[in-house]
């Protein structure tokens, strides 16, 4: 069973964000890059499913040449193959991204998908458009479920679960299928130093994406890092001595007791 995890290179998600002077991008001059957390789980799941069902796991990304770094992370996690659809680094919008990924994921003659299971992060950490997976699935005519927090493969059926209030919804998808996964699905492995060294030597497949152009759509005007309007908290006291003040607050002001 062959799996593909689609990943995106994003600025280090734990870092403090500042914007470039023209307010068009995150200033990455002092930032590292990473794979979005949901997508890290997609890579882990792709590897586990391929291992358990005797297949290959591929990591696929559309992005700048530097995206090799994230693809190598995938290889170091023991994915079998990596492919980069290299762009000039400019941010592509979801329709164009999805059309290009879909082209790369089907063979030339028709829209036969070249995978059994396709995994996306539910949304990317940076732009969070919530739609690339759905659009790829629609183009390839395969079923898709978003928000997946548990996945099992049983006899060419993907059993995908999604958390809802009070429980989980269970979906059964005939393979080939695609899913958008969320953090919590699994615990992504740390790549060992040895695996990282090996991954450096592995070759990465490259394709020049032939992008379908779309008219109109959604155009970014500028980004804004909202000023935090918060001030300092009202300190009720130090240590256990503060407890009477806390009780007063809970009882009189907040009325939660």
């Amino acid at each position, binding site marked *: 069973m062959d799996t593909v995890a689609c990943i995106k290179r994003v600025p280090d998600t*734990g870092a*403090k*964000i500042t914007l470039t002077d023209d307010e068009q991008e995150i200033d990455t001059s002092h930032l590292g890059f990473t794979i979005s957390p*949901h997508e890290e789980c997609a890579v882990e799941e792709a590897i586990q499913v391929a291992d358990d069902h005797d297949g290959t796991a591929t990591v696929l990304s559309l992005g700048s040449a530097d995206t090799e770094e994230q693809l190598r992370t995938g290889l170091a996690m023991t994915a079998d193959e990596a492919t980069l659809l290299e762009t000039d680094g400019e941010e592509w919008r*979801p*329709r164009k991204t999805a059309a290009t990924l879909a082209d790369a994921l089907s063979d030339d003659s028709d829209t036969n998908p070249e995978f059994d299971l396709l995994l996306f992060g539910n949304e990317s950490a*940076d*732009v*969070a*458009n*919530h*739609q690339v997976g*759905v*659009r790829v699935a*629609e183009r390839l005519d395969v079923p*898709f*479920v*978003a*928000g997946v*927090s548990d996945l099992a493969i049983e006899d060419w059926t993907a059993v995908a679960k*999604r958390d*809802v*209030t*009070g429980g989980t*919804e*269970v*979906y*059964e*998808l005939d393979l080939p299928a695609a899913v958008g996964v969320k*953090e*919590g699905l699994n615990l992504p492995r740390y790549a060992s130093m040895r695996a990282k060294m090996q991954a450096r030597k592995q070759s990465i497949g490259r394709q020049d994406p032939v992008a379908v152009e*779309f008219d*109109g*759509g*959604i155009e*970014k*005007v500028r*980004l*804004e890092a*909202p000023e*935090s309007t*918060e*001030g*300092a*908290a*009202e*300190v*009720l*006291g130090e*240590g*256990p001595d*503060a*407890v*009477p003040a*806390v*009780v007063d*607050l*809970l009882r009189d002001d907040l009325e*939660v*007791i």
Partner: protein
Amino acid sequence: MILTLVEHAGGSPEESSLEALTLARELSTATDASLEAVAFGAESAALREELGDYGIETVHRVADDRLDTYAPEAWAESIAQLLDTTDTDAVVAPGTDRGQEVLAHVGAKCDLPMAANCLDVEAGDVYELSRQRWGGSLVEHARLDGDPKLLTAAPHEFSPETVTATAETAVQPFEPSLEESAFRVTVDRVEESGETGVSLGEARVVVGGGRGVGSPEDYDKLETLAESLSGTVGASRAAVNEGWRPHDDQIGQTGTKISPDLYVACGISGAVQHMVGCKGADNILAINTDPEAAIMQKADYAVVGDLHEVVPELNDALANER
């Protein structure tokens, strides 16, 4: 027409759909367009009445027994067919898993762009809008084109408000022609969690524990505190990654978004990804040993101290209050 996708449970609209309706109503008022809704599943007088309270003039009820169970592609195909027969300026959906998923399918089927998690929208030929990025810590200002415009409302950003002059809501049955293949993705079954307590997303009081809690056993104190405040316990990603709490408990960008009356953050530093999940809280009380921790700028109230000393003492005091 401004069309809103309304999710409902047995006729009672979901809070997130009422939020989306608030955004839709702003758009309909600004453009003098009618405010309408699309709903799936069995008709209910309660739903009609409640939507009337929110100013909905017409509900397009999609009638097909197969649609009583959620099926994203069939929902999207129905909406796409409805768009073919109506003059719709915009479709607004709630920024829930379902809302995003269905609208993205509509976008794919009709080859239209979609703007997810909008915060503010100004109607015009092209819509000027702002939307959440980076888990809510960045705002993107953007222009959205499309006929119609597709957008989802960021959760917890719009407060549902009823209208004073309630309209009589008309129900318009809509029968899409749906092939069997549109139902290939559908909820097969629902597994109840069996948990009796309040869920994190709905709790009025949440007691969160972070790395400062130190061990899984030490969450007992937080459980006791949560219990006496009729609340529930949550955690930071650091605590979840340590394996002290299940991921279901995680609050934040990649966890649950909460909106309680009170959030008590114990041993949590207040990283932006965590705060994204609890900024819907009306009040935040931080208990932290570090007076310089980021949470001290973001909380409303704070106790500077060791949670292992403060929380048990607080539990005793609350027990005495009874």
